[in-house]
């Protein structure tokens, strides 16, 4: 079963063609293909182990596919990885940072690695930290930051070099309500600026609100690629959460929860 509808007729910024990747013979993704145009916010959904992380690692160049290719502006990224790396910003799922650096030092490191001019880097880093309410903590080591603060540092680092493509993997994790709203507004503005955003999340409510399109992946294959509203309409379901549950055939959560309680109580009754 696959649900697709045609995306707007624009020049594709990113295109994934039949990606296949296995680990020790076990396929993680089998046939992942989709396109992204400038100005699109694409939600990338799937249950745990569906192949989202593998796909993102391939897009970011950290992993090579066994088969298939990734095209950026029509060029295979494997042929010029350096040019591709310069064009995307990435916020990973886990906020792994060099925790002994301060927020400012981390942004300086990333900016210098990306070859930004010192003066420009200083201006951008300090302003982004201020806008993300990290100004008071910019000289404190990241090890002392909360999860939300680390996430904000990552978001700032991904925006430093004005990338064309942004990949956000669970970007709202740990953020407070105000920053979450700020982030949603930011996404809309980025899209309006012509940036393509790949948005990976388990929070379907947010995906439904901010994404133009959603791609649902399960067991390493793309099951659906359509606008959230179209998808719900097509499947005659009230919202994206119901669509998602139907598509990936998730387990009966109520029954599993009941079994968990029973296991917990073994030997304690």
């Amino acid at each position, binding site marked *: 079963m696959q649900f697709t509808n045609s995306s707007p007729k624009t020049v594709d910024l990113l295109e994934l063609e039949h990606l296949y990747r296995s680990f020790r013979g076990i396929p993680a993704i089998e046939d992942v293909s989709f396109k992204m145009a400038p100005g699109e916010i694409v939600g990338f959904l799937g249950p745990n182990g569906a192949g989202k992380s593998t796909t993102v690692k391939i897009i970011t160049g*950290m992993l090579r596919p066994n088969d298939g290719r990734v095209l950026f502006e029509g060029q295979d990224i494997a042929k010029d990885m350096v040019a591709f*790396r310069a064009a995307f910003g990435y916020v990973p799922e886990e906020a792994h940072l060099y925790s002994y650096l301060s927020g400012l030092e981390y942004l300086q*490191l990333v900016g210098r690695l990306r070859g930004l001019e010192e003066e420009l880097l200083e201006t951008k880093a300090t302003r982004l930290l201020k806008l993300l309410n990290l100004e008071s903590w910019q000289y404190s080591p990241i090890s002392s930051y909360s999860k939300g603060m680390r996430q904000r540092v990552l978001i700032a680092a991904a925006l430093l070099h004005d990338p064309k493509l942004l990949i956000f993997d669970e970007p709202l994790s740990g953020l407070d309500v105000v920053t979450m709203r700020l982030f949603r507004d930011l996404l809309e503005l980025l899209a309006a600026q012509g940036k393509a955003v790949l948005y990976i999340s388990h929070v379907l409510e947010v995906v439904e609100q901010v994404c133009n399109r959603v791609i649902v992946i399960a067991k390493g294959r793309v099951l659906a690629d359509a606008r959230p509203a179209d998808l719900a309409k097509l499947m005659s379901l009230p919202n994206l959460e119901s669509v998602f549950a139907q598509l990936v055939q998730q387990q009966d959560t109520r029954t599993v929860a009941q079994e968990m309680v029973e296991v917990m109580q073994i030997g304690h009754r």
Partner: protein
Amino acid sequence: MHKLINKLAARLPLDFRILYHQFLLRVVDLESLSIQADIVGYLGQFSGVLIMLSLLHAMVTYIGYLTFSAPADRLAFCWHMEHYLISTTMLVVGLITVISWDAAFPDRRDVMVLSPLPIAPRTILFAKITAAAAVLGLAIVTLNAASGIVLPLLLGTQPGPALDFIQSFAAYWFTILAASAFLYGSILTIQGFTALVLPRRIFLRLSAILQLAAFGLFLGVYFAQPLLTDPVSLADPRNRWILASSPSYWFFALFNQLNGSWPAQFSWLASRAWIALGLTVTGAASSLLLCYIHTMKKTVEEPDLVPGAGGLHCMPPFGNSLQTAVALFSIRSLTRSRQHRVAFAFYLAFVFALALSLLRGELATPAPAPVSMDLLISAFLMMFFAVAGLRNVFALPISLTANWVLRTTQLRPSEDYIAATRRTLLLLAVAPIWLLSFALSFRFKPIPQVAIHLAVLALLGGILAELCLIGFYKVPFTCSYLPGKANIQLVFWGFVIVMIAFVVPAAQFELTALAVPLKAAFMLSALGALFWALWIFNRHRAKSAVLYFEEIPDPLITTLGLSV
């Protein structure tokens, strides 16, 4: 025996055993190791080096003993070896204590992870102390395994009613354990009371400084303290303050007192050992107990986030943006990571102590001294240890999970990263040692010879840096590390042989070349050519290099590659 130990261990509470195992492995920081790391094998290799040292000590003791025939000479030699073995054991215990700094005290991670669990603080305390004692015990026993039998045996053959093997053996091992307990207890006492008195944040900062100070102190004392083991030196009133302030002499006296061979007029030295032992054991026990009562609470109450102070945040550029990024990243990693700081301090402290002991005579004279073998050897050793030490520390990772940022921002070819690493190595190892040598050179003459020596040293630094970069296609501190991959014993003994075989003849050659301008010019040209050739070689190889972030273990099956 193994079954008996297992049977006894099984009687201990389960939570204690689990914690003990965890704390024992924390001697090596697990977070910086590759998942394939063989920690047990790594510790086994260290033990192997210590056993080899013990065998060497035993051999030197035995051969040295046989070279003397008069009983008085033999006894004097034994006294010299006694002091040497006691002070070496104290040095090793001191170094292990510095490396596992704070390990006996509960840190924030322990408090946050273990506090919610039904585990009593005393279980954590005992598990930590037992783990530390196990590591120290292993080091003490392996370091004295052979010498701890040979020396008591030789002392047992000495004439006199009280000098038999059993007594000497018991005295030796009691003294070694007491000296180790004193040193370890002293550090625990200082740390414990500092932690109790100071606010935690200030304590953590001071602790890092204390750690480096202790490192320098242990090595400095070991190399710089004079040898005063003969009765004449011991009786000399000018040496009284050295003896009174040197713990290794207190325990030397204690050993001989227990052995029954110590002159009564020096018994005050042995008394100092008893008093010091009593004070430190009491101090360590009380400070540890108080810390476990107060510090755990203090750690939880500590605010999670405090705004960072202004301070020095501007750093000079170190070349282009990539070179600046790599250099600053390396400096910050080195200065802010305890493990890396200590590892590099180990090399530096060792080399400075060695240089200090070699140049003590020259530096003490008011007038400039002529360029000597001691100056050349110390300069070579300083440069070698600093460059090789930093290269080794570069290979220790700091936060592997954060490396994704380096992978996703690699916008330049690998050779640029390798060039940035080279610059960092020159900046942090070669330049400081050269500047130190430059400062020292004002104490030597004639000036032309000193200038040529400094040029030789600069070239040597460059050559060593290039040698260290062969195959090193990594950003410092970012590649996983496989302890046990390198054969420590092989490296250690290989180093000793190379040092003896290379440094002394090289210094001799340089000394003669400095006096003959033509020879000096040839020496400089040869070194310059070697440096240039290595630089070209590394640059050429770097063009096709690929940066790597994960050390790959050797395959379990090695193919012969015979098939087409």
